[in-house]
């Protein structure tokens, strides 16, 4: 199939996670994404590991984020390499970077200068905290951003202290917003024929992730979130029964719904809680009552009672259960990429479907400079 971004060329100077996850999405949507990396060592993200796993010379994390891309090796401090990169920029549609303020100016690839090389470029910048203010020079790292943003007071129970989301959500959201900004900029460029600057930051993105609850905070007399005292609490701003409960053999999630209907189905007397307000105000008390009752039957027994009544509930699965489930297989979420030694690596595919097509690509992450020669030829970078 012809993918929506077929024909577009993206140069990725970005490293680590936020910028490169944006590059991955653009690649899956059809763009040709070329990582500009220092010779031999490549981008710093190749050394960032989880569980210390390396594949084909780079970390597994790097492979996850950088599949379906090409790599062009260039030492930006070497005038000849820089000259070639500038010729490449002249033929690109998008370039992205996440260098700290001042670095691209020193190299001579700041937005002002790049516009003279390519007056139609989309120039994307990722920072940790924006380019102004007292935090601008701080390291833009996910856990630090979560910690500053207030996000850690939303998960788990009220006596748990600050609890981060157990994934790099600031990076991931920021990368996702970066994609939106770059695509919107391409639409703008197609009207104006002029270059566009796109800027995102991890902190703004993780604040945006909290837009519902921050809006509530700004308009409720600025109260702070009150997490439930009950284990398994699901959301500081939602009423009972929202959360995860222990059953006789495992766990059960109960989402929002009409509390009286739920009480009846579970055979728990909740008649004291007549008004919807009380479902919020006496949340912990109600959850206690439900928890006591839910411990008496297995998850399967409860699901058999609740699901036919259209009560929103679910079992809790681990990866071992979820990733082998028929529902997972039916959506074809898994895909394999082929490494340089012909081994295959399993990962997930792009979550967006276009014109009934699932977007797959068998292309694995490149090693540093893997496509330098071919790119030199195709873009005529070494010629006079």
């Amino acid at each position, binding site marked *: 199939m012809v993918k929506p971004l077929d024909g577009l060329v993206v140069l990725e100077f970005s490293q680590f996670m936020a910028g490169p996850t944006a590059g991955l999405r653009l690649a899956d949507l059809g763009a040709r994404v070329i990582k500009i990396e220092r010779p031999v060592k490549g981008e710093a993200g190749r050394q960032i590991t989880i569980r210390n796993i390396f594949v084909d010379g780079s970390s597994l994390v790097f492979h996850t984020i950088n599949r379906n891309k090409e790599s062009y090796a260039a030492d930006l401090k070497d005038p000849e390499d820089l000259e070639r990169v500038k010729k490449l920029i002249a033929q690109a549609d998008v370039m992205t970077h996440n260098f700290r303020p001042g670095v691209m100016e020193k190299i001579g690839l700041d937005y002002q200068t790049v516009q003279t090389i390519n007056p139609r470029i989309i120039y994307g910048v990722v920072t940790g905290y924006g380019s102004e203010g007292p935090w601008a020079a701080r390291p833009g790292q996910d856990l630090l951003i979560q910690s500053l943003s207030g996000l850690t007071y939303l998960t788990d129970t009220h006596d748990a202290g600050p609890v981060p989301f157990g994934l790099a959500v600031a990076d991931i959201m920021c990368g996702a917003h970066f994609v939106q900004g770059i695509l919107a900029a391409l639409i703008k460029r197609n009207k104006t024929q002029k270059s566009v600057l796109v800027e995102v930051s991890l902190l*703004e993105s993780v604040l945006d992730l909290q837009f519902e609850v921050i809006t509530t905070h700004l308009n409720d007399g600025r109260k702070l979130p009150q997490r439930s005292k009950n284990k398994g609490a699901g959301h500081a701003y939602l009423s009972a029964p929202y959360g995860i409960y222990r059953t006789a053999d495992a766990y059960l999630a109960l989402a929002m719904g009409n509390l009286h209907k739920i009480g009846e189905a579970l055979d728990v007397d909740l008649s004291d809680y007549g008004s919807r307000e009380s479902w919020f105000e006496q949340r912990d008390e109600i959850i206690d009552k439900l928890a006591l009752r839910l411990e008496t039957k297995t998850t399967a027994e409860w699901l058999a009672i609740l699901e036919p009544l259209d009560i929103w509930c679910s079992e809790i699965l681990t990866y071992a259960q979820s990733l082998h489930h028929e529902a997972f297989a039916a959506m074809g979420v898994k895909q394999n990429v082929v490494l340089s030694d012909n081994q295959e690596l399993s990962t997930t595919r792009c979550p967006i479907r276009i014109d009934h097509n699932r977007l797959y690509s068998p292309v694995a992450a490149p090693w540093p400079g893997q496509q330098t020669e071919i790119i030199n030829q195709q873009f005529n970078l070494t010629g006079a």
Partner: protein
Amino acid sequence: MKPLEDYLVVDFSQFLSGPSAGLRLADLGARVVKIERPETGDICRHLYTSNVIMNGESSVFHAINRNKESFTADLKNETDKQHVWELVKKADVVMHNYRPGVMERLGFDYESIKAVNPDVIYGEISGYGDTGPWKDKPGQDLLLQSLTGLTWLSGNNGGPVPMGLSIIDMLAGTHLAQGLLACLVRRSIKGEGALVQVSMLESAYDLQFEAVTTYYYDGLLPQRTEKNNAHAYLGAPYGIYKTANGYMALAMGSIPQLAQLLKCDALLPYTEVAQAFHQRDEIKAILADHLQSDTTESWLSILQPADIWCAEVMNWETLMQHEGFKALNMIQQVQMQDGYQYQTTRCPIRIDGELLTSSKGSPALGQDTGNILQEIRSGVA
């Protein structure tokens, strides 16, 4: 000029996932018209979503639906349907988040709209996709977190802990906006329409793409630490620690270097890099104990100059008083048509150095129906 100026989005979606995508398109410059049923409207206006009521409706509704218009129509009434047809004929984007099959029954599915508007970009969000044994399950955030393994990543080792926001809803909305924008890019070059589909299920796995890929590689389930867990796959010191007067976050840093800087001799034996992962529970326990002996400010004043990645932990109150937050100009004031004003956040993307703000608050149910009908009659819309 905003990037999506002159684009019309007709949005049939409710709750959070679809409408959050609509909000992003609105902030990027599009005109977004919510199609709502008479009397009740988007269910998010009233039901279950927060106990904070602003101007008669849920705070959450106001956060998600600012900068939009509201057009009421009973999609089972022929006259109303005719009006909606006039709108979707002119639309650049049409979107919904009904369960599979509902739009086909109502007659506003992609094939029908494409027949009268061939280059329309049509977006849909489902809970679990259009095939497989879960396709008719309710697409609700907590259930998606529960079914996709997400609840085993946050909090300390023990039972499942959900992430305390409707993160899958929001991510699915984010992915829908990406898909719609990508197809608008293509349309602006080639004039082609498109169908864009996302599901909360696919979005939930995408959020966990690193962890899922790791599971495929080594077959091991995520292991959270006993205490101070911040990421099931990372070694010590990665976590948040209590200090004498609050909390601090400690991301990366070699254990011997931390031992020296923090004057914590108990950490000195952990000299091997691999120990930081394999003995992370021990190391974290030592750190947790040690860091309570002094204040956050005092620790940061030692660690930050040494380029150790660390930070204070803030709540919204301390955050919003900080110059670092104020410099972002993240809060904007908006006004509803009846004059009611409220504060909310702005779009997190900057284009050409400008913040994408809009003073337009959320619409009262059906407030734009009259105007839009007039536009339809005069052939403008």
